[in-house]
């Protein structure tokens, strides 16, 4: 994979979520995504950060989160990778809960899957978890899905 266009490390503090999502929104807009798509990216990243801070780091505010961002050219979009050093989580637990079960909490993973075009959780061999998400511009995403359908 090529060098990310942006690579940064943040502390696991909820008050940093607003500036991070604003920055990612701006970058996604620059990459050609529309306002709705930028909003989806902001919300998905917000949910991922919330999960890392709350469940991974148990609200410790001095742990580290690494965020890497790539602008995608063909098709247009963005890829965002988030790494942490939190304890490993079994991947089958990262599927989101049934929405018919109306209760507080547990919506984050469902939202990430709903908002992004691709979502991939993995355990980092060096410790911690990795989440890689991609959001494509609507026209590109439609073509991409059509190609998958055509090839299947």
């Amino acid at each position: 994979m090529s060098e990310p266009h942006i690579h940064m490390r943040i502390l696991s503090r909820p008050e940093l979520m607003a500036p991070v999502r604003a920055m990612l929104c701006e970058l996604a807009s620059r990459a050609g995504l529309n306002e709705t798509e930028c909003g989806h990216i902001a919300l998905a990243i917000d949910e991922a950060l919330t999960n890392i801070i709350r469940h991974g780091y148990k609200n410790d505010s001095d742990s580290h989160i690494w965020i890497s961002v790539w602008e995608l050219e063909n098709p247009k979009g963005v890829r965002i990778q988030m790494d942490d050093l939190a304890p490993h989580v079994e991947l089958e637990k990262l599927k989101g809960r049934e929405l018919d079960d109306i209760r507080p909490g547990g919506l984050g993973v469902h939202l990430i899957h709903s908002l992004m075009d691709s979502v991939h959780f993995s355990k980092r061999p060096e410790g911690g978890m990795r989440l890689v998400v991609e959001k494509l511009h609507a026209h590109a995403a439609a073509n991409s899905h059509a190609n998958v359908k055509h090839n299947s």
Partner: protein
Amino acid sequence: MRRCARTHAVQVFKSSTTITHMSGATELVVDVEAISDGVILRPKGDVDMARSPVLRTKLTDALKSKPARLVLDLSEVPYMDSSGLATLIEALQTTRKNKIKFIVCNLMPRVRSILEIARLTTVFTVVENRDEALKA
């Protein structure tokens, strides 16, 4: 500046109270307005993990007096994440238990969108504006 950011400022306007919670560079203000059969809460700002505790506190306070009607006016909430949704669901559960009418109104597009994705628009009583909320 850093010290100011950690303080809570309380201002009283006629029948409403404004609590300002500063968290980092941004803040969440919640206006509370008494009505004949209950209370209207109007948060102003993004409701995310950093700021949803402020809304939770205001909702809990408002529900303590068991009003007949609780209206949540989201006309000045441009953004909400799942921690905000969780706060709303907690309030919904309390209102159902205590037979309190809980009405949400004036949703901005992004907030309506997250409610739709989470399939919660039919779980809450959602109306267009404050007038409808007072009649619902």
